[in-house]
């Protein structure tokens, strides 16, 4: 039973999409670039970062494009003053919530958060910095977790669960105290479930997860493997 095709408008253009698409899928197919940070091709979507918020005609609140399904006649706006204001604020909140020091980060120049700030024109944070005291877990033989640079996108959690099948990663705590943990909040190096495959490191958008031995600016994430692994998991389409 092939999926039904529906029609919607994105930024005033008529676009056709399968009815099981999300707004983000439809926009991608129509070559409309909606900013995202937690979304990654090959992982399920969770709407954690809220950067892909769009305006949908007739609905007063903003909707996350990555987890909102399309519907017939829907009219979507992906870019407006209001959306830019919210997106910039989200990025500024991410920067001010932890300690992102781009200049001395292993991911400097290869970081999705840094690139997003550039793309949106964020040149300073209008919210005051929190400067929390956060640990670095370097107990793993090959990898390091630096909570200072984590934006809680949960890509690591999803990659480990959905692709590797180990589910070493999870999130603990609530609100501002939330943090990613390995196993039952034990040091990563002591984890019994971790297979040291490195998928979490390569899907991490920032320098929060990186390979040991990388100096500043040297951590380049390799993500090309993901769609293939997803295909293997779901069978050839």
């Amino acid at each position, binding site marked *: 039973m092939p999926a039904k095709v529906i029609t919607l408008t994105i930024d005033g253009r008529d676009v056709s999409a399968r009815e099981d698409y999300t707004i983000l899928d439809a926009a991608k197919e129509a070559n409309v670039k909606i900013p995202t940070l937690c979304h990654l091709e090959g992982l399920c979507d969770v709407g954690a970062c809220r950067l892909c918020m769009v305006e949908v005609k007739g609905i007063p609140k903003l909707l996350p494009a990555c987890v909102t399904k399309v519907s017939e006649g829907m009219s979507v706006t992906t870019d407006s003053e209001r959306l830019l204001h919210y997106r910039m604020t989200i990025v500024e909140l991410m920067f001010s919530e932890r300690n992102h020091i781009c200049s*001395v980060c292993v991911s400097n120049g290869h970081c999705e958060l840094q690139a997003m700030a550039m793309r949106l024109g964020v040149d300073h944070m209008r919210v005051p910095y929190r400067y929390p005291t956060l640990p670095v877990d370097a107990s793993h033989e090959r990898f390091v977790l630096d909570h200072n640079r984590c934006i809680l996108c949960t890509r690591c959690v999803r990659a480990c669960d959905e692709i590797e099948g180990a589910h070493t990663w999870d999130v603990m705590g609530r609100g501002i105290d939330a943090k990613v943990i390995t196993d039952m909040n034990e040091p990563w190096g002591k984890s019994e479930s971790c297979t040291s495959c490195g998928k979490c490191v390569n899907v991490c958008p920032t320098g929060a997860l990186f390979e040991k031995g*990388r*100096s500043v600016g040297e951590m380049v994430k390799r993500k090309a493997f993901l769609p293939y692994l997803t295909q293997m998991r779901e069978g050839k389409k």
Partner: protein
Amino acid sequence: MAQTITIDPVTRIEGHAKITLTLGDDGRVSDARFHVTQVRGFEKFAEGRPFYEMPSLMARICGICPVSHLVASAKACDGLLAVKVPETGANLRRLMNLGQITQSHALSFFHLSSPDFLLGMDSDPATRNVFGLAEKFPDLALAGIRLRKYGQEIIETLGGRKIHPAWIVPGGVNDPLTVEERDRILAGLPEAKDTTRLALDLFRRTAPKFADELDSFANFPSLFMSIVGKEGELEHYDGKFRVVDSDRKIVADGVAPADYADIIGEAAEEWTYLKMPYYKPLGYPYGLYRVGPLARLNTVDKCGTPEADAALHEFRAMASGSILSSFHYHTARLIEILYALEKIEELLTQTDILNTHVRAKAAPNASHGIGVSEAPRGTLIHDYEIDDDGLITKANLIIATGHNNLAMNKGVLQVAQRFVDGKNLHEGMLNRVEAVIRCYDPCLSCSTHAAGQMPMIITLVNPDGTVADSITRG
């Protein structure tokens, strides 16, 4: 209660400092203190960070000599890895370091110091700067700007950016040199050499006009320290400590970088954020020694390159022992630029400089690493300890300007006693006090690793705390 004069900020040096002069009852200067007024805490906040991040983090101590910090820090990290850096990797690090010596010395001479002796110590402060120089001596200003640019371009060619390149890494460098890059650097050499020769010549002709300054610019016997190469030659990248006295007699030699604590102690004072290193055998505060270009030319047996050696020979003919006047830091810097340019040529014309094996990789194999290099302003020591996970547990840094701290204080006192007379304040006189500090070319961004600019108001304070007299300079 003695009167005090405060010079704040000390300008045209690279950093934050002020000077306090205390006048005795006879109106003469009885004490002088050079205060470093900034502290940033690198030694503390390095703790808990992965050691692989150290070189680039430590580079942020200083925007003027980031490469020296990259080198000293990476060498401390080499020690933690316990690897031997491939020879080409070491030579490429050397090359970048020489590029930096060129740019930093050019900056110090042309942009920061030459306004004093070309426009005059007593010239109008509003134009006594590089722009004033450009107006009066456009050709010279341009030559100086281009010489610094050449040094910066070497750094950029190797590391991808002029300031804070992340190219020097634990175990070596992260990108080999290409033929095109090599040829580009070689192409700029002739002009750079000409400018340096011109500046040396100019300074030789100008220096005699400053007999007073030569005499009183921190001109006192002291020890001098630097690292020297295997054959006692000038060496900025790798070597062992040597200390000579004012007669140029060697008092310590062949001290391995790892044993620096055998000869250097550190003291602190509550009136400055800059620690006071001293030569241990003599104790504090007697063990004052000097580092930097002048110290290096006093400690070495030779430069090791023909033109620089000829200039060194001429330089040394001025005195039987060590050259003592800090005014000659200027001469020493120019000779060092000459050496750097000759050495750059030597390194680039070796065929193995193009080798692609430029980095040794390993997990950490030692818990303690020490790296030493000669920064433009003197010896730089980085000393790290790590835990089993490779996170820094302890960092100690001794910075070039720190070594000179005791000597700078003494130098300021000496010149103040000669030129400052409490009953009669004038701008040029105070400028001379500052110029002494400028001779040492203190890189205060470095000095504040552990750890401004306000109006220059000179205030004379009566014993009861009321202001007797004050002049404002601005």
